[in-house]
């Protein structure tokens, strides 16, 4: 009895291992991994096999929701996502280790060129599928909301403005009774896409208030810091006069800053975040379905909220075998679908993408095919 059970488990393990091996490479042509792989594009419900991705940990919660939703709709499909970080995910993708990658930055021109070989001379597809507004949060007794422009926020985080009743803050908030509490800026102590997008916003929109460049590591030395969004929220809540930046879904009861866009002050909202992705120009000189965005941080349209984190899901337009192509197609279709975006919104607090972007993205997804 014992022995036979053992061997069955062993056989299952070997089979799983074989599946994993065959599908880790999108250039693999071994058909073991695809029982549903046929020449004709199959219906979503007929998909089976295993799909591997890796990359950004920022979209891990959303990807978990997408994997769960996609797998429950397609019983025979297993999707794995390894949140190794954007850099690691892109590297694995470019080496053909995984079929798709998640990244909180679009591929560089060099990386797009490199992707040609793994994508069998086809295009690379980048979809900005996970949009998360970043809120500037603060903890100041009696104050729930403040109006600040990017230059002032930059000076606060650079340590140039040190008290809450500084004229630079008071001038923009004539109706708020500001105490003379010291300002304690808090930043992320680990490498983070949130930090990169926040510093990118300050660098582009903050004019003379922020002398640093966009970076995943917070550029100002010293001061309070904490690991992860949860650590940030905990630190801001635990102090008085603290200010930091975090995914807006985690802001909770903390006060948030309405940032200056054009002539108005705009509070963070999912709609504003989705709008800025729509109005931003695409990176030039890329493939037809490469939706890499040049985020317009200096937007003056008050219906947009330019302080957002966008992560991309990256795939090839051409795969070696039909099964992988179908799986990627199915997964990405689910991700951009209204249902998928809603799942991410409730699981990770992201902003659902607009219908315009969905239509465009779907066109790109439909172009995914196997090498003929």
């Amino acid at each position, binding site marked *: 009895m014992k022995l036979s059970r053992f061997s069955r488990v062993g056989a299952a393990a070997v089979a799983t291992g074989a599946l994993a091996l065959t599908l880790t490479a999108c250039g693999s042509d071994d058909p073991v991994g695809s029982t549903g792989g046929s020449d004709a594009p199959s219906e979503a419900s007929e998909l089976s096999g295993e799909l591997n991705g890796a990359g950004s940990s920022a979209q891990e919660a959303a990807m978990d929701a997408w994997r769960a939703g996609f797998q429950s709709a397609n019983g025979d499909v297993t999707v794995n996502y390894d949140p190794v*970080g954007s850099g690691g995910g892109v590297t694995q993708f470019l080496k053909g280790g995984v079929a798709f990658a998640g990244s909180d930055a679009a591929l560089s021109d060099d990386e797009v060129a490199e992707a040609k070989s793994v994508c069998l001379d086809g295009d690379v597809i980048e979809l900005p599928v996970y949009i998360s507004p970043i809120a500037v949060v603060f903890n100041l007794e009696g104050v729930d909301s403040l109006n600040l422009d990017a230059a002032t926020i930059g000076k606060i985080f650079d340590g140039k403005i040190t008290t809450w009743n500084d004229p630079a803050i008071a001038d923009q908030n004539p109706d708020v009774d500001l105490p003379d509490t010291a300002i304690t800026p808090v930043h992320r102590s680990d490498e983070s896409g949130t930090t990169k997008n926040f510093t990118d916003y300050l660098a582009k929109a903050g004019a003379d208030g922020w002398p640093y460049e966009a970076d995943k590591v917070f550029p100002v030395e010293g001061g309070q810091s904490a*690991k992860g969004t949860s650590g940030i929220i905990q630190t801001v809540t*635990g102090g008085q006069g603290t200010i930091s930046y975090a995914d807006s879904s985690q802001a909770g009861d903390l006060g948030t800053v309405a940032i200056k866009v054009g002539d108005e002050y705009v509070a963070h909202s999912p709609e504003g975040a989705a709008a800025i992705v729509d109005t931003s120009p695409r990176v030039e000189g890329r493939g037809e379905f490469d939706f890499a965005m040049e985020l317009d941080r200096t937007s003056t349209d008050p219906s947009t909220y330019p302080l957002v984190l966008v992560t991309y899901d990256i795939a090839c337009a051409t795969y070696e075998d039909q099964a992988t192509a179908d799986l990627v197609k199915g997964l990405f279709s689910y991700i951009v679908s209204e249902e998928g975006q809603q799942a991410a919104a409730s699981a990770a607090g992201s902003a659902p993408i607009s219908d315009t972007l969905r239509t465009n993205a779907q066109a790109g997804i439909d172009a995914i095919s196997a090498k003929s």
Partner: protein
Amino acid sequence: MTSTAPPTARATPARRRRTPRDRGMNRAFRLVSTGSGALILAVLAAVAIFLVARAWPALTTPGAEIAQDVGWFPADASFLSFVGPLVFGTLLAAVLALVMAVPLSIGIALFISHYAPRRLATALGYAVDLLAAIPSVVYGLWGAMTLVGFVGPIWEWLASFLGWIPLFEGPAATPARVMLTAAVVLAVMILPIITAVCREVFLQTPKLHEEAALALGATRWEMIRTAVLPFARSGIVSGAMLGLGRALGETMAVLMILSPGFLYSFAILQAGQQQTIAANIAAQYADAAPIGVSTLIATGLALFVITMAVNMAARAIVARRKDFSGAN
């Protein structure tokens, strides 16, 4: 010490193996225990080899090249100038914790061994041992969520009245995510192990010594000072070193409490000044590029070396003190 066994009893192993009694279970047990002893050495060697092998790329790559791929590596640093502040922070945290924990542990252990009524002593002993069973992540949560708020006003008071001492230089950070808070939590974490060792050693003080002291008219304090503490000195040192070992390597609590910085700074009330090696590895490992991982493992190698050095120093102290401890 006089040996009762004649030297011939320690004859060559070859002869022992041939004796008729070294068979069956006897032989098996000898092999098992020898194997266990060898295994621990093998594990230690394996860890050391792993550390050196994986750290090698970082140790041989110039700092500027590492900095290209790794965001948190300062552009103008070499590996040594990167690891220096981390070693400093690690030692500072551990020493601060030790300074707080050792006197307290000795007090608790003395109370349990010589002052408390028997029942209370047993209960207190259990309570202290229980502290050792709390996982460090729980200590971290407690420190970051409760203790940080509680000690904030105390640190502010320290900074305003004792700020002229470099150690307590203000302004005290709010929230108090600073080295001193982390050190307090570390002290609580190493308290049980030091207390347990001290208690055992205090209890082993020869009754004759204690009674002799009392008979000569010593008060209880004088008895402890003249009979118990000298006898226990080496035990206290080894207990403290065990605690130091744990404090050096503690990760979660420091990671969750401390706002890290990379300076050679004694300002333990300010945020963003120091960081420990273990907490830095945990903070940066998840998203690190390959050369970054190698750099982190190299800092781990530094920690490994420090811990070994500390333990060997402790051994040396204990061995040297044994002869003078009054145990004979």
